[in-house]
């Protein structure tokens, strides 16, 4: 309860962006309950059923109840992409909408109105919007997390082996090199062969053997030497390159390599977005590396991964959160532009970008431009504002 109160206190400190984001999160989680053409609860002849849980494949139209049925429908009684044949061809929210009841065409009752209009196929814009923002938020958050992970690993390594760091013994580097070479060899020559897994096993065994031998049994002087790895320089140059290539071009090029799917979008976004994270983590870690408490932790036995997670991460986390939120916002914008251009997600999935792209077909459909745009802009804006205010709140 205390943690809940603390969270509430922090949310209050941050103000409206926190509440807006909370509402968006609620909408995203509850989308199937909010917009669904299947009923949530159906009571027929005393039997309860939950049609919305059935997947599209196993869902069958329910039989008609003899003594009338009771039930609870979703607030928006339409699913994404399901076409309402009475209101096809871009129906405006203020226009007269039609409804078919018992085979007769009547005026649209309030309950079934398309509050935000329909598109070409007559699918409800509000439902499309809810589901579209659900997918794009999922993709962007996942991509931001993956790119944070990627950036954390690379940035940490860069800072750790950066200027003024310890040299690495050849006893470690040489077996590593050998392992890399062997792996390359196996991937090159044994891919598609029946001996592939044997070969990989063989390579791993050989590498482990090389490690054991070099660490324990070799005492030649030239192997006991150590060199410093220019990992930091390499990281900086690669980061420079990535910031020089326009992200849109990189994303387009990568999305041409992969088949369109949700996961390929995640991969593409995180491959093109790790640089900022990596830079931040590198800067933070190289600052923390010099601090005396890290020295003390190292002396008391913390190493590598545990040192990073237990000692450094709590100090890096606030600035990481800020850049994570920025990256989620950026990913959302990029994902939307990508699906606007017709790449990334497979075409049958409607997202905010592809909804706006429909407006290019028919200029009079202002509702296809205004609502998705404001919806997306508000989300991105509140992400920006949240991180800005959070940064001001954070002690450091």
């Amino acid at each position, binding site marked *: 309860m205390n943690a809940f109160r603390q969270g509430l206190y922090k949310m209050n400190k941050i103000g409206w962006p926190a509440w807006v984001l909370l509402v968006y999160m609620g909408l995203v989680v509850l989308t199937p309950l909010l917009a669904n053409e299947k009923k949530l609860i159906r009571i027929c002849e005393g039997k309860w059923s939950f049609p919305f849980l059935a997947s599209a494949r196993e869902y069958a139209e329910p039989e008609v109840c003899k003594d009338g049925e009771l039930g609870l429908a979703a607030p928006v009684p339409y699913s994404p992409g399901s076409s309402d044949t009475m209101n096809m061809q871009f129906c405006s929210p203020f226009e007269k909408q039609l409804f078919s009841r018992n085979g007769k065409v009547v005026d649209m009752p309030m309950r079934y109105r398309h509050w935000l209009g329909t598109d070409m196929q007559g699918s409800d814009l509000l439902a499309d919007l809810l589901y579209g923002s659900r997918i794009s938020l999922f993709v962007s958050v996942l991509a931001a997390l993956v790119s944070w992970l990627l950036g954390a690993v690379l940035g940490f390594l860069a800072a750790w082996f950066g200027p003024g760091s310890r040299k690495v013994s050849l006893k470690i580097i040489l077996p590593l090199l050998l392992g890399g070479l062997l792996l390359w060899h196996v991937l090159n*020559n044994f891919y598609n062969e*029946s001996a592939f897994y044997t070969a990989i096993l063989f390579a791993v065994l050989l590498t482990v053997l090389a490690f054991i031998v070099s660490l324990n049994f070799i005492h030649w002087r030239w192997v006991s030497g150590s060199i410093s790895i220019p990992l930091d320089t390499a990281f900086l140059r690669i980061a420079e390159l990535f*910031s*020089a290539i326009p992200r*849109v071009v990189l994303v387009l090029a990568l999305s041409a390599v992969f088949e369109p799917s949700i996961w390929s979008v995640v991969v593409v976004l995180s491959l093109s977005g790790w640089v900022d994270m990596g830079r931040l983590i590198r800067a933070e870690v190289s600052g923390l590396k010099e601090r005396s408490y890290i020295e003390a932790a190292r002396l008391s036995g913390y190493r590598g991964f545990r040192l990073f997670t237990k000692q450094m991460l709590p100090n890096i986390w606030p600035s990481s959160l800020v850049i994570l939120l920025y990256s989620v916002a950026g990913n959302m914008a990029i994902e939307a532009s990508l699906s606007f251009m017709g*790449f990334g997600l497979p075409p049958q999935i409607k997202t905010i970008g592809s909804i706006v792209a429909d407006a*290019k077909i028919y200029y009079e459909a202002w509702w296809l431009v205004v609502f998705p745009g404001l919806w997306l802009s508000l989300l991105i804006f509140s992400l920006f504002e949240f991180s800005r205010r959070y940064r001001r709140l954070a002690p450091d």
Partner: protein
Amino acid sequence: MKDNLIRKLARAVIALVLLIVVAFVLSRSIPGDPAQRMMHVPNSSQAASSSGRLLHYEKLYRDMGLHLPVFYVSMSSLAVPDSFRHFPDKRFSRQLCRLAYWSGNPEKSLEWCRNHLSYANAELNLGVAHSGAEMAEKMEVFSRLNPAGGSRAQKMISDWRQLQESQPKTHWKAWIPVLNFNRENQFHLWFFGDKSVADDRSGRGVLYGDLGNSWVRGMRVTDMLKFPFLLTFMIASLVLLICFPLSLLTGAWMARNRNNHITKATYAFLVFLYAVPTFWLGTALLVFLASPQWLNWFPTSSPVLLSDAGLMAWFGSVFHQWNHFVIPVIAVAYSTYVYLVQMTYELLQEELDKPYVTALRAKGCRENTIVFRHALKNCLSPLIVSTMSVFPLLMGGTIIVDFLFSMPGLGSLLSGACEQKDFPVISGALLLCGLVSILSFYLTDLLNSSAGFDSAKDQV
């Protein structure tokens, strides 16, 4: 100073090399067979018969250098030379490799495959076998079942016996890795060009400004990219030229009246504007300002640019159709403008809290003079750096807007190329955009250090 310049140049060169490597990797990481794709280029497949098509395919395969290893260094094993993996016929290649792994005798395997493989595939369906051992098993069964086959089969079986007995028990050879150093390889061909076939049309290599031929249209990529890239670059630089002074003025004005309510409201509005995605604002402007249903101020059609009559004619056609470019420029410009205004405002606020400003105020200096003469001048260096770092972002925005307004810019070209998986065009565009950004970064660095702005904290 001189040392510093050399270091900066070295950094730019390293970034360029990395860029070239990325573009090359991208151009080779293709799902599918490039030569197969080239077969469908309209003016290159005249041969109608299947054997003619096969010959044509093999010629294309060799011309594109696909029979060569990918890079200067490659790795193979003692049993299988690198060249075995690069035969035009993928299935032949795969089977040959399997046989060579199994037998450990590359020369004999190649000879046997050359002479008998197609016959064996047709006769006893050898292609089903998934390893050398399986192939051997199938051959064994076949030889036992047909002790007195035709002379063709006898020849095949006797050659097989020879292959088996020539060097038995050499399976270990497959496990010994061999490093090859290839003087001729795909990267060399791509980057330095092929001297034997080079003319002024093709095959000159990236170093001499030839990005290869498109897989879809068969044109030279440089010809396809020239004017679209020029258009995109022109729009991006125009936007930068407009935005920089405007945003300096706005930011300075906001910092001058920083406790004003109007300033606060403006700032909030600008932050909101920054959150608006480019593609959406572009569409909204297109729908509301350009379509005949709403305000019909600007044309919705894409401009028709003359790309056959030389550079000046092209410029002329751009200039005459200026009204096509108004909305695109606004749609690209606003986010850069907002970013720069925010940057200026924050930097100036920090600057105005410094003691020398208090001293100037005490001296009786006017507030305008303090802000515009003294403080702004001190902020100029980081502002220039951040302006140039926006440039790649700006190119990206321009590409989206290009696509939106279906202008003959990089965006339309790139989206078409991505749809058809035309990788030479994609990697060429990537290379050009990166090149421009790296050069602009380098020039900014140079400019800053020659103006004496260069400070120790810039040295990352």
